[in-house]
């Protein structure tokens, strides 16, 4: 906002300079025309005009009130010398002084609209310049020359006042737009975090999209369509502001986002159902009634789903067993298949896929994962998370 006011004052100063120098140039052009000004006065007048010009140049870059004051005094001096009070003055000479009095001097007026002291200087300058031109004009104050000088002052002052008051008005609007934007940013951040924290949902959506990326080959169309319907419904819930969690019935239960602990059982069923559709039969053993904090449950289920996905893709069998056990401080899942197996020491256990999607997720919540396998003897993965 301060920046805007500074820019406003800078613009007004630049306008004063451009308008003033233009008018001064016009005035000088008229004054030096042959026959307008007596030759003996020319040097003094040109020198004083140069002083006014110098002050206008300084006004363009400086905020000091000295420059307008000196400029106005010099300008009044030009008028006094060229058209002394009481002397008979030719009309072309009076007219030539009009751009100086009503343009160059009123340009100083642009930077004088402000404090009371500046306004006092302004008023004095208006009165002096108008009076001197009016006295010198052939038909007095009703001549075109003094009226034009007054017009110049009025236009300059109205412009400076109007623009000067327009800027604070607009900065007030800008500040309120800024406030609204801050609220919007906050809302957008909350929304993004809500969506990102719906990890379980995104995990099933990503799994479905992955299947679709393979054109859905290997899975029955009906199963894929059912899965797509469930996932679309979950995404719709998310869009409408809920925090949906996949459930066993295939319908969607919206969880309030604040609930900190969720039972393992019904979410396990949804994982089972999902893999069932994709052709992997998952059998559950053990307890289903374990309460876990949301983020632990999320990580646990994601890692579990990742293990089952590996079974589905690589084991060569169509069923897997998951045994859930728990004691006082640990919940443990054992994922077993009787598939092709592999030599654990020949496959880098730190492979990105395993580390990112299983070890990484469990690590975040203080859990761990271990793999047991040998070629031809199936695979067992043990996942552990703290309660």
């Amino acid at each position, binding site marked *: *906002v*301060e*920046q*805007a006011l500074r*820019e406003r004052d800078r613009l007004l100063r630049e306008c004063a300079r451009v308008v003033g120098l*233009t008018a001064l140039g016009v005035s000088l052009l008229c004054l030096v*025309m*042959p026959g307008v000004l007596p030759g003996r006065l020319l040097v003094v007048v040109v020198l004083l005009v140069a002083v006014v010009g110098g002050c206008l140049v300084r006004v363009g870059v400086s905020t000091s009130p000295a420059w307008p004051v000196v400029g106005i005094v010099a300008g009044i001096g030009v008028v006094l010398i060229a058209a002394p009070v009481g002397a008979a003055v030719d009309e*072309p000479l009076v*007219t*030539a002084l009009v*751009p100086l009095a009503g*343009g160059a001097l009123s340009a100083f007026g642009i930077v004088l609209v402000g404090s009371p002291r500046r306004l006092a200087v302004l008023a004095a300058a208006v009165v002096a310049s108008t009076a001197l031109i009016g006295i010198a004009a052939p038909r007095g104050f*009703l001549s*075109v020359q003094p*009226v034009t000088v007054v017009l110049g002052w009025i*236009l300059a002052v109205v*412009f400076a006042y*109007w*623009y000067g008051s327009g*800027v604070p*008005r*607009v*900065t007030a*609007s800008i500040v309120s*737009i800024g406030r609204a*934007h*801050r609220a*919007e940013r906050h809302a*957008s*951040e909350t*929304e*993004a975090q809500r969506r*990102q924290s719906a990890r379980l949902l*995104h995990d099933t*959506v*990503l799994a479905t*999209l*992955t299947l*679709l*990326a393979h*054109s859905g080959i290997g899975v029955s169309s009906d199963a*894929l*369509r059912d899965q*797509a*319907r469930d*996932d*679309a419904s979950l*995404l719709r819930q*998310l869009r409408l502001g809920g925090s949906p969690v996949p459930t066993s019935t295939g319908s969607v239960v919206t969880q309030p986002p604040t609930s900190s602990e969720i039972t393992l059982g019904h979410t396990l069923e949804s994982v089972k159902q999902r893999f069932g559709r994709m052709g992997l039969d998952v059998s559950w053993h053990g307890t289903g009634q374990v309460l876990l904090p949301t983020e632990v449950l999320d990580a646990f289920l994601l890692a579990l789903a*990742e293990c089952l996905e*590996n079974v589905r893709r690589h084991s060569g069998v169509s069923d897997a067993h998951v045994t859930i056990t728990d004691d006082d401080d640990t919940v443990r899942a054992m994922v077993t298949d009787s598939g*092709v197996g*592999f030599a654990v020491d020949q496959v880098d256990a730190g*492979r*990105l*896929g395993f580390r*990112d999607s*299983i070890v990484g997720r469990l690590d975040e919540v203080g859990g761990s994962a271990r*793999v047991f396998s040998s070629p031809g003897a199936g695979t067992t993965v043990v996942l552990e998370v703290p309660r």
Partner: protein
Amino acid sequence: VSLHARPEENTLGGIVGTGRRRGRDRPAPKAVVRATEQGATLGTAYLGIGGGVLCAIEAVYSLAKFFSNLHRYTDARPTIVAWVLFALAFAIVCVTLGRRGEKFPRPLFAAYLVVLAAVVALDFIGIAPLHDVGAFATASVTAGFGLLPMVTLRPPRDLLIAAAVLAAAFTVMTATTTDLDSASLPELVITIAIAVVPLVLAVYVLHRFRRMVQLELDRVLVQSTVTAPRFAVGMLASEELTRLDLAAEELLDSIAGGRTPLPLEPKTASKAASLATELRLHLIEGRRETWLYHAVTESEQLGKSTTLNDPGSLAGLLDPAQRDGLLSAMWLLVADGRRTPSTTTVALGPVLAPTTQSVRRTITIPIVIQTTGIPRARVDTAVWLAVQQVGEVTASMEDGSLRVAIHCVVTNPAGQ
């Protein structure tokens, strides 16, 4: 055969990391675009009214001049008609603007120009027998002022062309009717200047005003990042995530509803693959950026001239007052450079090792603002005030441009 393979979408057509950089080279969040559009007309209505007021003042002056010279016209009727025509047109324009606000359609503008041209022509016909354009032109001069309220509504080019045409008309009129001598020339120059200069000046003033508004707007929009958490998703990524979720929902919906047949065509399959890739990237990478990164990427002004080098994401540790200072300083340095192109590079870190045991609760982040094209003399005092808000400042010159090093002390995140 690998046991734990990463999902394979990445190899199917979704190209990692490029999906988010689409469209124009620097996409802006929708909220920013909307606010910027709002800013294009912000405050101009008030300035337009000011233009109308200036026009009315000038009209009173010109009318007075006309009436005082009335006895010298051989036939004042064309000029009287010109005045009536101008008054009507100006009144209609004022009423239209009052009722329809910032909308002034092109045909109406064209009609207004035609009327103003007729006003000038009629006035010229009226004063032609008097052989002194400078002394007698009235309605034609006011016609130039009549365009002032249009300055806020029409592109600058239209108005500058109109001003040029008006100046040309005066020149031709003068050449054909007026003998130039020391008696007539001063008044002629004054008259033409009154007719043309205010319009040109108004176009320039409005241009500067709009630029000022856009700059300020950009500034307040970016200012909102100062209160953001240490790591934020950012408005762009947030919108992107929403868009991806919606796209996924639509795709799944169309499959569930049978509108998209299974198995998928290769094109749809690759769409699903890239959706999955982008979604995964957004879910994994979403939280890693600091407020400063978002400020630089979202701001028109900072985005084009500022490079941020913050590998440790240390900007997130700054408290709101320090952030405000840093942002202000970066802002003032580049926004102030109006003529010469200037750039800044802001580097944060690495964190300095604590010197004594007792200050374990804080850590010191060195921040270096390296500029190009910013001589020390041009640096605003506000910049110094702003950087002092961040920490202890050492300024030096490198290749004729400013280099500011700041020792920024922040709370140790490990101690919290």
